[in-house]
């Protein structure tokens, strides 16, 4: 398979990761585009036969964390669409709307969301994820745990109960009064 064909092969997952990471399809496509351009420009740095997928994801997350994360906050401040749509909606456990889940995911701090996506969605091992995110394996694990805990909380899943109808937190995401990391979003 040629380098180009391999890039095409990884495109869908790269894009899924980008969208899940930054939360906005348009910005995600910009992210993917920049990633592809960088991959092509730095192709000579890639050692054939090594983990191209991890390499591409590394490029993408580096672009996101160096450039796009700030932009995402700014957009959310101005465009209330994202936050306005974070309406508490009682959902029966097990029927949580995927959009609600995606919104809850965006409330997870970036590095934690990244770790969860790499390990829990994109299918990387902890070791690979640590390489992509440029951190220790223990840090990846910690971030994944925190991401899950945050999601469970925001989705109204408490620690000690069997899955049931959500409690009065009922998926109240942005409106939750629990301690939230300082984020420049219009909440």
């Amino acid at each position, binding site marked *: 398979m040629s380098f*180009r064909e391999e*890039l095409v092969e990884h495109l869908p997952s790269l894009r899924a990761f980008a969208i899940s990471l930054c939360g906005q399809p348009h910005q995600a496509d910009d992210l993917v585009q920049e990633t592809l351009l960088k991959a092509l*420009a730095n192709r000579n740095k890639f050692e054939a036969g090594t983990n191209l997928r991890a390499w591409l994801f590394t490029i993408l997350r580096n672009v996101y964390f160096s450039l796009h994360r700030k932009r995402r906050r700014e957009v959310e401040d101005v465009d209330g669409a994202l936050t306005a749509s974070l309406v508490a909606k009682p959902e029966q456990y097990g029927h949580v709307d995927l959009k609600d889940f995606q919104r809850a995911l965006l409330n997870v701090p970036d590095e934690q969301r990244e770790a969860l996506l790499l390990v829990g969605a994109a299918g990387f*091992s902890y070791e690979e994820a640590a390489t992509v995110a440029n951190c220790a394996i223990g840090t990846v694990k910690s971030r994944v745990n925190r991401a899950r805990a945050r999601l469970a909380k925001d989705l109204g899943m408490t620690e000690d109960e069997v899955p049931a109808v959500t409690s009065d937190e009922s998926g109240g995401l942005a409106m939750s009064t629990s*301690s939230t990391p300082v984020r420049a979003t219009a909440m």
Partner: protein
Amino acid sequence: MPGCDEGSGSEKPTIEAEKSDVDGAKQMKPTDAKLARSQQSHIGSQLRQMYDGLVNEPIPDHLLKLLEQVDESEAGSDDDGAGEGEATT
């Protein structure tokens, strides 16, 4: 692609919350130290469902066009100084 599985032989992702890492600030019983299995798997399946839905979306044309222009004879020798692609383990 399975969510938490990997095939490279390195350690398998298992979710074990270290107590010190769990935000919550209240007294955590040992059983609270990690999410219940049912919650973990529920979050996991929601996550994969969301992600797989995105994977299955059609790729925007402009991204495909970008790759169509790649000349296979190029070695990508011009370096824009980015240097991000170093994760070649």
